[in-house]
Each structure stands twice: as structure tokens, then as C-alpha cells.
């Protein structure tokens, strides 16, 4: 399983198949502000990256997380 699928499905308590680029706080009740911070930290750990606060706060959905990771030269495929 891709690290992103693993992280999103575990932290949000959803099925791996539900982890798509369109997944967002608007369509996922468990993606609240507290889980957003957990997601952020787990993603940084898994990809050995650090996002700036502004980058992290601008994230609106999984697709944007993928773009952000890829902009730092890592593979973020689902």
C-alpha cells in the first residue's frame, strides 16, 4: 500500500479505496483540525520532509498533498 493511502486511511478511519485525490475535509467528517495536524506530521515523517506552516495550512485535499510532496522531489502516488 502507498504510504499516503496508509496514512489517510488509518488517521481518518476510512477504507483505503476511499483515499483519492478528491478526498478533502469537506467530504470527510473525520478530517477535522486535530486529525489534520496528525496527518501533516505523519506524512512528513513518512516522506522525510518538512512543510512550512503556510504550505500545510493551504492544503485543501489529497491531490494538493500529492502536488506538494512531488514539488519536493518525492513520489506521492496513491
Amino acid at each position, binding site marked *: 500500500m502507498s504510504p499516503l493511502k496508509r496514512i489517510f486511511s*488509518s*488517521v481518518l*478511519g476510512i477504507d483505503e479505496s476511499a483515499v483519492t485525490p478528491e478526498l478533502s475535509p469537506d467530504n470527510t467528517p473525520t478530517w477535522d*483540525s486535530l486529525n489534520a*495536524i*496528525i496527518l501533516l506530521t*505523519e506524512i512528513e515523517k513518512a516522506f522525510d520532509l518538512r512543510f512550512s506552516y503556510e504550505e500545510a495550512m493551504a492544503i485543501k485535499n489529497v491531490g494538493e498533498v500529492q502536488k506538494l510532496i512531488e514539488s519536493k522531489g518525492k513520489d506521492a502516488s496513491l
Partner: protein
Amino acid sequence: MELLEYLKLAQTKDSSLDASQKPLKVALVTNFTDDLFKKALLGMCIAEGINTDIYQVPFKQYHLELKNPGSGLMKQAADIAFIFFDINPYISSEFSEDERHVADTLADIRRYAKEQSTTLVLHTLGHAAATQHSRALTDAKVLALVNEFNQGMRALAGTYKNIRMVDAAGVVAAMGERTARDFRGMYAFGQPWSHDFVFALTREWMTHIRKISGRVHKCLVLDLDNTLWGGIVGEVGPLGIGLGTEYPGNAYVAFQRVLNEFYERGILLAINSRNNPSDVEEVFEKNRNMVLKREHFAAMVINWESKADNLKTIARELNIGLDSLVFIDDDAANRAQVRAQLPEVLVPEWSLPPEEYVHALLTIDAFHAQAVSDEDRKRGEMYVTEHKRKQLAETMSVEDYLSTLQIKMTIAVNAEELIPRVAQLTQKTNQFNFSTHRSSEEEIACWIREGAQVYTGEVSDSFGSYGTTILAIVHPNEVGRATLTTFLMSCRVMGRTVEDAFLHAVVKDLAERGVKVLKIPFISSQKNAPAADFAKKLGSGELALSAYLKHTGAKASAIQVTFPTNIHEPA
């Protein structure tokens, strides 16, 4: 299992796995955002089939909840409470702003220990000098506070049998402060700890949870060849085994010494070995480097049967459950067999070189709850004199305490410079929020132009300012009537009766502007129970202002309110 797996359990499974099992009541009392601790702990309890009911003290309200006999914490009467305050040199807190706060908090904990049978688990704090750059801070007040707090807690642990200690400072030291702390989390989200630290500490907590749930590990069952000594006794003889002053024998001796300490703390030792019993007898008789003697072992099963069967024999012989056994064996096949056949038995990984044995033994999540509490009781006795000398201050009632806080509030009306903060408050506030109406800066600016009143309160107390934390937006209706479309308060200032004083001031101002009736709609959401309680106190959705003012006039006066400073009349 990793942290993520526990988080998944916490998110997906109901903790009440077994309805017949009375839930273990757990309380978390911290001075930071502790949701990740809660989720990790919940996941771990679910993984072990422990049904829990976890109460978190609301953010920034630990001192109020500890003092108030009617608080959620005190009413919960938890079975076990984890009390963990972070005093650190990076960010100011109640502890660093007020030297009385340490003594005051210790007194609160003492009363909690005295009045409730809850097992209180206290945490030592990391010495700030453990950070490299803290050399510049050697005289800083925060170092003295940390020492004072640690000593005070140990004194309490020595006095009250329901107090346990967790060496959180030791956990920080073991991983290094830079790894244990998350600075972005601390400054941006009120969460000062890294995931690694949360994981390590909640594992410590689990040992206490297991103990209080009666799931203690009582017995360490040991293999012999290449576990208790180096080599195979059947091949090299009782004097040829690796045990002595040179490597690797010295590592096995060290391992036996620690096992001996476990024995002295009351943990049973047993042998489960495939060997000729006579060879083992010879080792006990002839090898003087054996730290452990025959009498250290409560049970010895030495034969050529399967290790799993032997474990069952040992459990039966000692009259304890299989789930109270920990089995240590260097042979991977034996471990796999036991794990498969007896999942109740804890089988730590042990494909290790002997120099790793002591460390591996000390980090098994099984025995430290026992070890720590007894150790600390002993150590605590040393501090009792110190404790008597100091005579910690008696605690106050919550009302008296609130009055010592000297809470002040400055209210502004339609302050343009605060519009971004007002919008943010409507976006972020969930708990004390009457309508949970999210508004943009543009909307708010527009309402002000159209004649709405936006009241904002900045709250401060003797610990410092909490910023703009309470908000009311009032829209005028027909003559003499208005609607409170937004009424919210940040959780930072909850529990301080700020809302009473604020609403009183707002109503007074509205009354002076000719409003007679204020409509107060309440829209319940999943999270706004705290606001619902307050709404209930106000009665129906319509407030007759003169009656309200008459009724609340005396009560709202404990907080010093400064009112309007900068009224912007609509253009």
C-alpha cells in the same frame, strides 16, 4: 504495532467492545492539547480488549477542574488519571508566569489524591538543562520551577499510596529533547510533543492501565542456552558456557543481574529449556559466575517437550494465567511457535546479540508500572521531611481562586482592525458557539456598514493575556428589538465566568441604545454542548433586557470590564 495502527483502531472501532465489561474510567489532565495522547491510548486499549471511557480536561482548564468539586473531572471519579504538565523554557505558561502556581497545583493534586480513590499517575518533567542551548539559561527561573515541581510530586508519591510516577523526563532523555519535542506543534497548535514521544509515553501509560485492570505480567519465563548464558551447555559443559568477566560472558552476567533485580521487586522467574536436567543442575552447582541460583526460580521445566506446552505447565504450577507470562528465548522458531499457539503470552523479539539483552529487558512494556511505583515510594520517603518543611498551601475554592486570577476584559465595538480575528473566531470556534455560523471578513465588514454591532472582548488575567477570545454580533431588527446572530467564546477562556460578564456588558450597551428585547437563537451542533448549557441558563430564545440586567447586576461584577474604547459609527 505502530502508532498509525493504533490511531486507526481508535478511529474505526468502538471502545465498548464488550458491553458486559464495565469501562475503565480514565482522565487526562494536561496543560496542552492532548488529543493525540487520547487517540493513541484509546487504540492501545482497544487492541488489548480493554473497554475505556476517557475524559479530557478541556484545554487550559486543568487548574479550574482540579479545584472545582463540581467539575467534569471531579464528577467523573476516574479509576486512573494521567496528570502531565509541561513546564518548558520555550513558551510562557501559568507555571512560568506565577511562582505560586507550582505550589498551588501540587496542593490541588494532593487534594485529588486525598479525596478520591483514583490512581493518579504523575510525570516528572524534563530538566530544561537537558537542552544544549540551555547553557544560557542555567539561572533561569524555569529550571528552579521544574526542580521544585519534580520534588513536590515525589513527596506526594511518597505520601499517598494512590499516586504513581512516570519518568517522563527519562523518556525525553532517552530519545533526546530535539526528537521528543515538536516546536511547530508547540507554537502553532498547542501540542508540544512529537509523535515519537506520544507513542513512547502512552506505552508507559498502558503498563499502568494493565496493572489497574488486573492484567499484570507476573512472571518472566527464560530459555537457558544463549539466553541466560552464552553457548550450549550440553556441548561445552557447565564451566564452558559464556558467563564471566569477558565478552560475551559479561553481557550475560549483566543480564542476570537485572533479572535478579526484577526478582527482588517481586517478579517471578521461571525456566523453560530444552536440555538435560542434569546438565543444568551442574551449572547451578559448579559455575560460580551464575548470578541467579536455583532458589530464584519459582518453576523450572527442563525437558525436550514443546516450549508452548511447557509454558502451560508453568502457568498451572504457579497458578497464574498465561496472560501474565513473558517468554524470553533467543530461538526465533520457538518464539513463533509460542506466539501462534499461546497468543496470550507476551513474547518480545529476541534475535539480538547479548550486549543488547539488558536494554531489551528494560524496555519490555511489562514490568515498569510495578517497578516505578515501588521505587518511588522508597524514594518518596526521603522527600517527606522536605515536604513537611514546606507544607504545601491548602487549596482554595474555585470562586476564591477565580478572584485571585484578577480577570480583566476589554470590550471593543466594531473595531475594524479586529475584523480578521473576528472572522477567524467564527471559523475556528466549535464548543462555545451558539450558531456555529462561519463568516468571512467581507461579510463582517458589510454588516458593520449596515448597522450591526460587533462586540469583541479581550481577556487577560494574572498569567497574561488570552487575546480577543469572546465575540457577539448583534443585528438590529424593528425598533426596540435585535438578534444575537453570533455568540461565541474561545475554549482558551472557558470556565472563568467570562461569558457572564461579557453578555452582561453587551446587554447593558444594547439597552442604552434602546434595545428592549434580544433574540438569542441557539442552533445545536455535534460539538457545541458547552454553549447549550449556557443557553439553557438564559431560558427561552428571547431576552427581556431590563429584567436580565436586574437579575444579573450583582453577579457579573467579579470581572473588571473596560467598555467601549473605539466605537466606529457607520458612515
